């Protein structure tokens, strides 16, 4: 197999939900994602983020006029859709509504059963996947006895058991409490490092976006901008309209500015801001 560096290519993607009027959900989206990249897609509610994610996995009724999607070099068609789905793992928003199995291990095995994997192989993979999301001790638990963060980690285990190339997080942390959010993000970050995964995260969460190599802003179904977190975070207050929180360092900079201080224009991380303030302070 040849090495594909462009893992996802989207050309002129258009989509309109059946029986809706007005603006299409996606219009003329062009996008390339490299293997091993972490891309955050942000945008306010209704900007088309989830529609984009679902279309990448062939979960929406696409017509030939909709444009072209290629995953790992394979064009998405009715014939290739199952093959493409096997390369993409999706974690959805509601932890309860994607938990199929009656227990943790059953749920992790669900995808493996679907591809008809022999049972001995399933046992090994389920065990390994649970180990990697640190849920081994919960293997026989029912979903009702798990926290939201734990359920999402099980969903991730179910995905990595299938050894995909791409993970799509479709607002996977938005229903979680802060502890759960950290758990899930940390898990994804580790897995990405270990397995050279490509991660696409659709999110409102600033910490999740900060993890990305690149942020893409979607607005009314169109890609408005794209850049590194440092570039995008400079937008300050405007980020709210774009569906993202303002990073803390930017908020403090704005407050300092209101106190009459002149602050650096470029984006500073929190650490960077501490250093900048400390340098000034030590000049006193």
């Amino acid at each position, binding site marked *: 197999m040849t090495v594909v560096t462009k893992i996802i290519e989207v050309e002129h993607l258009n989509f309109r939900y059946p029986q809706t009027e007005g603006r299409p959900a996606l219009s003329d989206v062009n996008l390339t994602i490299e293997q091993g990249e972490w891309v955050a897609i942000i945008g306010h509610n209704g900007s088309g983020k989830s529609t984009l994610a*679902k279309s990448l*996995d062939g*979960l929406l009724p696409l017509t030939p006029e909709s444009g072209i999607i290629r995953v790992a070099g394979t064009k998405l068609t009715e014939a290739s859709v*199952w093959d493409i*789905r*096997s390369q*993409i*793992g*999706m974690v*959805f928003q*509601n932890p*309860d*509504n*994607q*938990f*199929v*199995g*009656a*227990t943790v*291990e*059953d749920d992790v*095995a*669900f*995808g*493996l*059963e*679907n*591809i*008809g*994997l*022999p*049972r001995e192989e*399933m046992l090994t993979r*389920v065990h390994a996947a649970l180990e990697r999301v640190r849920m081994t001790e919960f293997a026989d638990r*029912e*979903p*009702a*006895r798990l926290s939201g963060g734990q359920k999402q980690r099980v969903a991730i285990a*179910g*995905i990595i058991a*299938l050894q995909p190339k791409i993970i799509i997080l479709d607002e996977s942390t938005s229903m979680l409490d802060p502890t759960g959010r950290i758990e899930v993000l940390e898990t994804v970050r580790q897995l990405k490092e270990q397995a050279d995964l490509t991660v696409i995260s659709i999110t409102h969460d600033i910490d999740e976006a900060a993890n990305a190599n690149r942020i893409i802003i979607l607005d009314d179904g169109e890609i408005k901008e794209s850049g590194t977190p440092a570039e995008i975070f400079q937008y300050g207050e405007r980020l709210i309209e774009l569906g993202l929180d303002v990073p803390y360092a930017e908020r403090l900079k704005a407050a300092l500015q209101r106190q009459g201080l002149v602050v650096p224009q470029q984006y500073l991380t929190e650490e960077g801001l501490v250093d900048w303030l400390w340098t000034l302070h030590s000049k006193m």
Partner: protein
Amino acid sequence: MMNKLLLGRFIPGDSLIHRLDPRNKLLLSFYYIGIIFLANNWLTYLVLFFFTLFAVYLSNIKMGFFIRGVRPLIWLILFTVLLQVFFTRGGTTYWSWGPIVLSQFGIVNGIYIFMRFVLIIFMSTLLTLTTPPLSLADAIEAILKPLRVVHFPVYEVALMLSIALRFVPTLMDETEKIMNAQRARGVDFGEGNLFQQMRSVVPLLIPLFVSSFNRAEDLATAMEARGYQGGEGRSKYRILTWQARDTWTVLVFGLLTGVLVWLRA
């Protein structure tokens, strides 16, 4: 929140009874209900009574749970028992009033009927307390498997059953939440006349339907994303294994049947 987790009132454990193959347990429970009808005298009932008690003891589950199983049915049991007591003639008659008699046979029969109820309830409670609902579903699937010959969709039905079971606690949570939300908006559930009560159900049922449909849609998308294309070609993660202890329990039940046949009048 813990209160909803005891669906089917399964109590986790590691006893011999817990570890039996659910197919075996399910079939033996039905078989036991059958052989209870072999008992027809003190001795046979006594054997069954101690047998049941021993099974309960082996399960390591407190007696209280079994007695709670009898409670919801107590009126039905008492009604049946009283019918037996007052309408059976034979032996010494102690008292009579029109068609109603209190006879020796009546009392004895009443006690037998009562025993029969209690034994059946104890044994089926033992089944549900020691078997996770999911394993029961597996057992049912296994027992239905021969129906595949006539193109009955055994896999699909089994998956539906297991998803239904998995969502029962979720929907119970949801029900409670919506009930509370509507109570906070001034709805009195279970108060007023029949019409008022029926009306109070609407603000509960509609949100519940809406949310179930949304969940179903989400779940279908998630299943599709995880490669589900129907029952054909799927392998199975959960398997049931018949162990030596299962063979032994079958033998013990065989022995019990023999004893009952030998002792009955």
